[in-house]
């Protein structure tokens, strides 16, 4: 036995590698991003032949992996939970057609939400799509579940979902990594034609739907005796149990620990297969208690599948909060409340309220995330703001640059690609409301390639007029620098064909297309003005500016090659304009508010803040030295 510390996402990656998964695709998104990177790492280390791909979107990733499964190979696709929305079309259809090689989908849910626009439950999407789900409680368990998931998928020829949450993905656990992987059942057969299945028309789709229902019935009865469903704190004398708990996912371990802390033995039925729910097992468990609490995240999936809820409490009767993460504090409150109801009050050390009061009085401001020192997005945003002012309409998008909210040049953020569609929508609405404000949408390179192209085509076609600023920093920065189709390398570093964004934009029919370095703030401002003028001309339409500068966190070579160290002169009066308007984390207002200093520990010498002091007190160091 070899025990190692593994991040949950690395455990998933190792599980995929050990189980002879041959194709793994993904679109990056927190908390899922480390999985594919992990597969690349392990395939090199263990010398396995696995095709890995950072796809242009989750739908693309899903279907590339699905075709591999239809070719008889084991395949997997990973994404964050909202990514499953993007791939939902494929998921629903693939449930009907079924698969050949084991096919596992890993959407990572984010109760909280910590880094997502919703707290949606992928298990509920699976329930709607009729796809079986495994729900791991710990990083260690993901490895055993992946093995079971591949086997189930191959046996019943269905896609299978393994759904971890943030607290599994980003937990680090000491794990026994002895290889327990299983070779595939079906062999590497290559794609076998079967039009009535793989290209089924509606008549055959009905047949496939019946087939899927039969599969689910068989799977449910297998789940009744699955080793992933078990009872802990099994009482000797059942009659004395005040209530029971059904739990799944990471919050199961939290529930267990809370009971330990309380020193009470409440039986918990741990469900590792929430869909299709082993209903007999659950009903039998429920029948033993006056009341059963269902503790699951982020929504009610197990609870919804229990038809008779007379003795069941959870989210549907508001006993469990319907939003936010089920932290140990929340679980303690819920279980404590239930114990109270049955007349069992137990002491558990809570946070000290006196101490909390004193800390509250200190009014510690929340520390919001900010763009990195030297980030080229900041330069683009600053110029944007000084050019068009606070009144323009600024639809934004998903990525680091959503933080343009801090500079007040991101007014909306709905989903991937939403900036372009919203800009067009605002334009068409503005014709009716007679709103003359400029509209400037911002979107990153990866997000544009994911979901911006079709909206751009639509905008051009419908004669919309706005500026689209594509912030091209040559990578998917927010999630850890994954390559996009505009890069010339693939997930594992092998050569890939670069698809230049500029060519795509021109091909979409955009007549005003310019590439410029946002670090050159003056010409950039002129370009923005030209773009706005173009949108107003008779033959004008969408104007696209590609702000071209690599992400300084992952490629600082341009700054290193041409550093512009700056100083703030004695004259600085602490007006804090630069701190607020430019908000580089290296610009620090002195505690006594008398002036602003530069924190040279984090300053990267980009020199971009020089124009951020309109009084001219931020100057290049060279000037000081030569004076």
């Amino acid at each position, binding site marked *: 036995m070899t025990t190692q510390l593994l*991040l949950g996402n690395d455990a998933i990656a190792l599980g995929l590698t050990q189980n002879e998964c041959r194709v793994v695709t993904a679109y990056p998104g927190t908390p899922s991003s480390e999985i594919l990177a992990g597969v690349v790492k392990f395939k090199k280390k263990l010398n396995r032949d696995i095709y890995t791909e950072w796809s242009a979107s989750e739908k693309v990733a899903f279907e590339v992996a699905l075709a591999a499964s239809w070719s008889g190979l084991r395949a997997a696709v990973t994404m964050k939970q909202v990514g499953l929305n993007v791939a939902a079309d494929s998921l629903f259809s693939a449930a009907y057609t079924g698969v050949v090689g084991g096919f596992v989908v890993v959407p990572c849910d984010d109760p909280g939400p*910590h880094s997502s626009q919703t707290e949606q439950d992928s298990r509920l999407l699976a329930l709607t799509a009729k796809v079986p789900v495994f729900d791991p409680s710990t990083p260690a368990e993901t490895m055993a579940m992946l093995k079971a998931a591949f086997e189930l998928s191959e046996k019943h020829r269905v896609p299978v979902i393994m759904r971890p949450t943030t607290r599994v993905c980003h937990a680090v656990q000491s794990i026994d990594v002895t290889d327990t992987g299983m070779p595939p059942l079906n062999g590497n057969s290559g794609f076998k034609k079967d039009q009535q299945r793989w290209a089924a028309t509606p008549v055959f789709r009905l047949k496939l739907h019946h087939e899927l229902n039969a599969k689910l019935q068989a799977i449910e009865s297998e789940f009744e005796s699955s080793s992933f469903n078990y009872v802990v704190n099994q009482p000797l004398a059942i009659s004395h149990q005040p209530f029971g708990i059904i739990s799944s996912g990471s919050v199961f371990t939290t529930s267990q620990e809370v009971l330990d802390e309380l020193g009470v033995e409440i039986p918990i039925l741990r469900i590792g297969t929430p869909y299709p729910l082993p209903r007999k097992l659950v009903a039998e468990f429920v029948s033993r208690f006056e009341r059963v609490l269902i503790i699951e995240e982020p929504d009610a999936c197990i609870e919804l599948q229990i038809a008779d809820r007379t003795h069941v409490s959870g989210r549907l009767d508001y006993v469990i909060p319907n939003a936010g993460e089920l932290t140990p504090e929340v679980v303690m409150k819920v279980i404590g409340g239930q114990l109270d109801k049955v007349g069992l009050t137990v002491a558990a050390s809570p946070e000290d309220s006196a101490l909390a009061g004193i800390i509250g009085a200190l009014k510690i401001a929340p520390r919001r995330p*900010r763009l990195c020192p030297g980030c080229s997005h900041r330069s683009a945003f600053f110029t944007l703001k000084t050019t068009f002012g606070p009144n323009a309409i600024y639809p934004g998008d998903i990525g680091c640059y959503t933080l343009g909210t801090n500079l007040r040049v991101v007014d909306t953020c709905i989903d991937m690609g939403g900036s372009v569609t919203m800009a067009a929508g605002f334009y068409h609405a503005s014709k009716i409301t007679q709103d003359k404000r400029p509209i400037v949408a911002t979107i990153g390179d990866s997000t544009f390639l994911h979901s911006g192209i079709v909206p751009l085509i639509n905008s051009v076609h419908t004669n919309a007029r706005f500026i689209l600023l594509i912030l091209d920093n040559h990578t998917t920065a927010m999630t850890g620098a994954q390559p996009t189709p505009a890069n010339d390398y693939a997930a594992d570093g092998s050569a890939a064909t670069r698809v230049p964004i500029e060519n795509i934009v021109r091909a979409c029919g955009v007549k005003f297309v310019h590439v410029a370095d946002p670090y050159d703030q003056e010409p950039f401002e002129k370009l923005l003005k030209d773009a706005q003028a173009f949108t107003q001309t008779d033959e004008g339409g969408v104007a696209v500016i590609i702000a071209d500068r690599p992400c300084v966190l992952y490629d600082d070579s341009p700054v290193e090659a041409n550093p512009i160290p700056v100083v703030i002169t004695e004259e600085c009066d602490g007006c804090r304009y630069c701190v607020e308007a430019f908000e580089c984390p290296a610009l620090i207002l002195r505690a006594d508010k008398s002036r602003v200093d530069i924190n040279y520990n984090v300053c990267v010498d980009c020199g971009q803040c020089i124009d951020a002091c309109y009084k001219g007190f931020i100057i290049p160091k060279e000037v000081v030295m030569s004076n």
Partner: protein
Amino acid sequence: MKIVLAGIGGQGVVYATKILSQAGLLRGEKVMASENHGMSQRGGSVMSHLKIGGSEAPLIRRGTADLLVGFDRTETMRNLTFVRASGNVFVNSTNGLDSSLSERLQELNIAVHAINAEACAKELGSPAVTNLIVLGFAPAHNEFGLSLDDLKSAVRALGPAKAVELNLKALDVGAKAAR
């Protein structure tokens, strides 16, 4: 042992958590840690929870942590109520914690051990190892549970080779400051 680590994005909170986790693993203990990824890394508050020899639950409940290791004074105060009565706080700070907290902390028998790790790091000529200096400072207090040697073995095991020497030095600087 339940440990909360708190700091700001870029301070190496995740790396510090890795060292303590590895140290626990090398002692043959079960380890479960929870990391912060994503948005919060862009200069926001960063916190990890770590359990050595404990349960598989990823998070620590407020009022139950044995230790709080803070790399930033403000973040340490923000997370102070995680610490249980009679627990310990190790903090990178030139002036301890806010004086308004002292009385209540004393009543709760929570000890605060402060080190000016930034100054030490400057002396060492490497601001990047502030986190390791704080870690090196902690084992001198019995309550910490892991020894300086445990941490050193972890640093060696984690690598990368070119960083090991500096990291070991930083641990020693922290340990020296505790004497």
